């Protein structure tokens, strides 16, 4: 059995009909990890003993309860959790050494929901420490490598979750997206990656980066798989007062419906100098496919795009400096000197933009620009149903290429951060390959339009099936 090629949909069918057991599937994951993870560094902690125990338990349930798959929609599905997800009695480091020996006494809401749905936690994944980064290189451990080309980054900050799903160590990799951190690794690793609407999925128990931006999503090989997981994770949580009481759609039910007459907008500010020609061509080819499926494409404008990154890099470090103040070396973990360089930079930047005499010029100004960015999107969605942009202006870059120049690293996310400022959903969808490297396309919709994003992406995936192109560990 080739785990690399399987999807959640395949696995559930095969578990139901007894082609293999949860135990066999779980064991396969660990065999694969032990064979390949030294090259990739996707995992910080493995949960082998508990995972196998759960698998045995579920095999018994499958034998004895005919309706178990209705009660537990992700029964037996191997899942890798980003290390910002609090997991009871399972080491949770946030990719940092400051809390490198933290064993939480509770589960995040989403962790609990996934466990209750029958998912099996394979391990905790590597990431840029605290979620600060676009490449995975800001981890306090060994950086994760891209399974499609080991000399390149997998995208960050949810680097390990992206790489783990790409090389078949798990079928779902969870992430958090504050500026790019699910969509970029999905784009660089040929996966579907959802940044949900802010407030759609509970943040309770997810170690906070920037609390008015953080969203909780996941990466999978296919659209169906992604929608299936969101059906489990979405919803109001009394433990997170920013979750919104809006009904959860049955995301998998609408997949396959046609998109005739769908209006797609191309924001002209995203197709400018600095966009790699090959990436541009790939997106344009994908748009032709969407047109063939019945969509129409027109140019639109998001006039304040030019200022989005500046606003983002004021507001987010401000919130970061506040959230990281709790790691004072007294109540939690080690001394503040152990913070990595990027955490220190962001704490200092945030302290600066919030400091006396600068608050109005920076924080307040940026909060006003955030309003303008949000209004740009609202206006665009009066003209079109969804927007399409590249995930990244370039192909996955080389390890080490941007580490000395933080500003260049920040600008890797130029197509993605505006979506977080506006709090709307964005879906990363494979757009094919250039020079053997994955290219990602972003589909953006209004607040709570995840259902529509999945509908569009599903038909596109049926046409293209890029997810079947598996990584070859090039340049290893």
């Amino acid at each position, binding site marked *: 059995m080739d785990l690399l090629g399987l999807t959640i949909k395949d696995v559930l069918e095969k578990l139901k009909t007894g082609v293999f057991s949860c135990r066999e599937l779980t064991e396969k994951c660990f065999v694969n990890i032990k064979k390949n993870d030294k090259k990739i560094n996707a995992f910080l902690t493995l949960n082998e003993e508990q995972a196998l125990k759960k698998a045995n338990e579920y095999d018994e349930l499958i034998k004895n309860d005919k309706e178990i798959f209705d009660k537990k929609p992700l029964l037996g599905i191997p899942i890798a959790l980003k290390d910002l997800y609090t997991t009871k*009695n399972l080491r949770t480091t946030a990719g940092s050494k400051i809390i490198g*020996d*933290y*064993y*939480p*006494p*509770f589960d995040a809401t989403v962790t609990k929901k996934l466990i209750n749905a029958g998912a099996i936690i394979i391990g905790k994944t590597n990431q840029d420490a605290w979620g600060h980064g676009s490449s995975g290189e800001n981890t306090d451990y060994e950086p994760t490598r891209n399974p499609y080309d080991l000399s390149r980054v997998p995208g960050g900050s949810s680097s390990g979750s992206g790489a783990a799903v790409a090389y078949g160590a798990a079928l779902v990799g969870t992430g958090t997206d504050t500026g790019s951190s699910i969509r970029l690794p999905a784009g660089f690793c040929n996966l579907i990656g959802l940044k949900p609407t*802010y*407030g759609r999925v509970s943040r309770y128990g997810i170690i906070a980066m920037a609390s*008015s931006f953080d969203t909780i999503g996941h990466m999978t090989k296919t659209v169906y798989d992604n929608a299936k997981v969101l059906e489990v994770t979405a919803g109001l949580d*009394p*433990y997170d*007062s*920013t979750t*919104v009481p809006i009904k959860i759609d049955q995301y998998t039910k609408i997949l396959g419906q046609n998109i005739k007459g769908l209006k797609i907008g191309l924001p002209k500010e995203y197709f400018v100098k600095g966009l790699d020609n090959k990436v541009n061509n790939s997106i344009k080819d994908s748009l032709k496919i969407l047109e063939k499926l019945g969509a129409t494409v027109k140019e639109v404008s998001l006039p*304040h795009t*030019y*200022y989005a*990154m*500046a*606003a983002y*890099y*004021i507001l987010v470090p401000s919130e970061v*400096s506040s959230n990281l*103040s709790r790691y*004072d070396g*007294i*109540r939690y973990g080690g001394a*503040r*000197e152990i*913070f990595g*360089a990027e955490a*220190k*930079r962001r*704490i*200092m*930047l*945030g*302290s*600066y*933009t919030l*400091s006396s005499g600068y608050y109005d*010029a*920076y924080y*307040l*100004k*940026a*909060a*006003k*620009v*955030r*309003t*303008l960015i*949000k209004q740009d999107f609202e206006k665009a969605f009066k003209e079109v149903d969804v927007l399409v942009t590249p995930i990244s202006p370039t192909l996955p870059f080389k390890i080490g290429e941007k580490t000395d*120049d*933080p*500003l260049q690293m*920040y600008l890797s996310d130029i197509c993605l951060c505006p979506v977080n400022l*506006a*709090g709307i959903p964005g879906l990363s969808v494979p757009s094919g390959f250039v020079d053997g490297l994955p290219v990602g396309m972003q589909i953006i919709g209004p607040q709570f339009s995840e259902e529509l994003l999945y509908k569009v992406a599903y038909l596109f995936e049926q046409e293209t099936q890029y997810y079947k192109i598996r990584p070859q560990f090039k340049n290893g």
Partner: protein
Amino acid sequence: MVKKNLTKEDILHIAKLGNLTLNEKEIEVFKKQLSSVIDYIDKLQEIDTKDVEPSSQITGLTDVLREDKVDDKRTLTPEQALANTQSKEAHFFKVKAILTE
């Protein structure tokens, strides 16, 4: 616009606000890197935001409250809270002294 050049004093001041102590090498590196980032974010000063309301959140939710009642499901017993610490005394986390006489 004037190019931003943070001084060593600026860096030490910001580090102090963030409760960080830096070594000489870090001070030099951060001086250069943070100056370039601040130079970049300064471009916001170009936009007119005179009649624009700031956004501190995007859900529009306000006054989300719960009943002022203890919910046993969301509390830990002292034993549970202390289960994974290496440093405890009775029902307390034991930390280093932070005050001196």
